[in-house]
């Protein structure tokens, strides 16, 4: 079975004819990985058998495949970067990479890609590394199905799970990341895909995304991260089908959007976040078919946002649907389902006949005077809220959904 798999993998790598396989391990032809790399030529495959390999910093500077069998351990002894990839077309697969060095000057990583392309990093387990997998000027690389975990308690002691800097056409697929500073970090990364990753319990952001344009992230789970997900200073970002759950805290968001334009947020689920989406300086954003459930605020839209279209979303059981700090509204909210809507539908077209105002008076009061949260849901404040619905005075006049749905959408 392993052999068949191996042959198949070889096929994927398109190994040139005449490539050799070098076995590495106790009682094999070569006992150290470093020696095997030195021996290997471009296109060769290194089969690394189980064992603990303490070989300081392994530098892969040839187009070779490193394949671990039953997760051989590459130990950085808390001093070194475990594996540095400096050649294009390298495959690193099936290793257990542990204990990288920690430095405040250098960004040590478990596996790091240096200024190269077409690298595949697959099926590895990384434990207790400073940075997990790091791509610096990487192009067209695949980082797939790795399990990356760290147990640091302080942000300074911890790097990011998957860190991409000035890279392009990256594919980050199916990784599991726990306990790092940021689960996935993108800075100046373009045309890349983040797909089916599971980023939980990281100290800061599940996904941290800056100056990265034309990227998509799809079907990821971001749960219980210190501050949720931050997407900043980017344009043409597509966010589809993700789950943002239980990101709790006073500066914690399902997504924090800052200076984002021409982007799409569709089919996502936001559950039990303190703030589902926080938007600042966002423009030309399409939000469709998302479901906001049991969040503190489903969304907070600062007055600096414009041309945001919020339509066909479900708002269910949120404490507050929409919060805002201004009265000028340049965004549209039409055709959503709001469970707090109390209107009627006389002509039976499944659209409420009177508009819904998603900003409740009490959310405005709490915005201005936070301790007033203490009176939330009291008899008196519900009376005030009802009065406000009849005679709007504090809430923005134009922030309303003219076509509120009577029944929730099936999302």
């Amino acid at each position, binding site marked *: 079975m392993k052999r068949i798999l191996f042959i198949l993998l070889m096929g994927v790598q398109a190994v040139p004819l005449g490539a050799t396989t070098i076995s590495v391990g106790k009682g094999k032809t070569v006992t150290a990985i470093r020696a095997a790399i030195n021996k290997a030529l471009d296109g060769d495959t290194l089969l690394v058998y189980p064992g603990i390999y303490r070989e300081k910093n392994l530098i892969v500077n040839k187009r070779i495949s490193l394949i671990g069998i039953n997760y051989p351990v590459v130990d950085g002894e808390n001093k070194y970067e475990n594996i540095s990839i400096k050649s294009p077309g390298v495959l690193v697969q099936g290793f257990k990479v542990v204990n990288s060095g920690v430095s405040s000057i250098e960004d040590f990583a478990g596996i790091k890609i240096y200024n190269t392309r077409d690298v595949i990093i697959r099926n590895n387990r990384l434990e207790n590394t400073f940075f997990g997998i790091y791509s610096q000027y990487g192009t067209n690389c695949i980082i797939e199905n790795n399990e990356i975990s760290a147990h640091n308690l302080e942000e300074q002691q911890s790097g990011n799970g998957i860190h991409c800097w000035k890279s392009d056409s990256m594919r980050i697929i199916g990784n599991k990341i726990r306990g790092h500073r940021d689960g996935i970090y993108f800075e100046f990364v373009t045309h890349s895909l983040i797909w089916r990753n599971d980023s939980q319990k990281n100290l800061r952001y599940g996904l941290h995304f800056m100056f990265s344009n034309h990227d998509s992230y799809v079907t990821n789970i971001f749960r219980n991260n210190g501050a949720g997900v931050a997407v900043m200073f980017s344009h043409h970002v597509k966010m589809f089908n993700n789950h943002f759950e239980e990101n*709790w*805290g*006073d*500066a*914690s968001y399902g997504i924090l959007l800052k200076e984002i334009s021409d982007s799409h947020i569709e089919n996502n689920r936001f559950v*039990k*976040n*303190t*703030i589902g989406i926080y938007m600042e300086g966002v423009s030309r954003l399409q939000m469709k078919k998302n479901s906001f459930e*049991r*969040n*503190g*605020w489903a969304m907070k839209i600062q007055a600096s946002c414009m041309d945001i279209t919020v339509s066909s979303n479900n708002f*269910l*059981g*949120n*404490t*507050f649907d929409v919060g805002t700090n201004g009265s000028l509204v340049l965004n549209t909210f039409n055709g959503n389902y709001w*469970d*707090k809507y109390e209107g009627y539908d006389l002509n039976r077209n499944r659209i409420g006949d009177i508009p819904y105002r998603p900003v409740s008076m009490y959310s405005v009061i*709490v915005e*201005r*005077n*936070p*301790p*007033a*949260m*203490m*009176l*939330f*849901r*009291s*008899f*008196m*404040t*519900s009376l005030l809220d009802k009065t406000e619905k009849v005679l709007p005075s504090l809430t923005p006049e134009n922030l309303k959904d003219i076509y509120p749905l009577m029944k*929730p959408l099936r999302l």
Partner: protein
Amino acid sequence: MKKVIKYVIIDILRNKIMLGYTLFLFILSMSIFSLEDNAAKGLLGLLNIILIIVPLVSLIFSTIYVYNSAEFIELLVSQPLQRKTIWMSLFTGLASSMMLAFLAGAGIPVLIYQPDATGFMMILIGELLSVIFVAIALLAAVKTRDKAKGIGAAILLWLYFSLLFDGFILFLLFQFSDYPIEKIMVGVSMLNPIDLGRILILLKMDISAMMGYTGAIFKDFFGTGTGMSLSFLVLIVWIVLPLALSVRNFKRKDL
């Protein structure tokens, strides 16, 4: 004491109002839960019942009951019974009937539709508020001889605890919005059992929002084990204090 409690409870159970209250709670909570397709909204409706109806009924019913039992109390006082025993029996009988009515009327629907932390907290707070307002009603009833005045006082007390107090707090909040008064507000909320109960429920129901900056101060206090225990302790004090005062008054009261 057991004997007297027995007769008080038998008497209350024979009272149709109590049965009506139980049915009212039951029908109301069942319809709230079954009409709303979303259980969270059902809980919200139930919250209003707990915070408004439970104190009101507890207060008014107990006050009227005490006045209507004047003969019974008089009869008992002339018998070889301690006055404290008579009063405590009256309290125990009223409190346990109110608790039973709430448990049957609102507790069962909650257990059917929403048996989670929020639901349990609501039942707990509802039960506590029932007892607290029985104790407050006893104090109001023992203080005023006149029935009409006593019932008036009970209604005023309800108005105060459910509306006026909050209005006063809101006024304070805006008057002193430039000062860091969050911590003081935690203390102030202890002065009203309805507010205290509401905040405890909010911490379960609106946990996401309470985790944010605005709710953080409450979360930091009420969310901890110490804060939680302290809050429940305060709620118990809200039972014990009015009750002790009313016993003291009743012991000296001329019948």
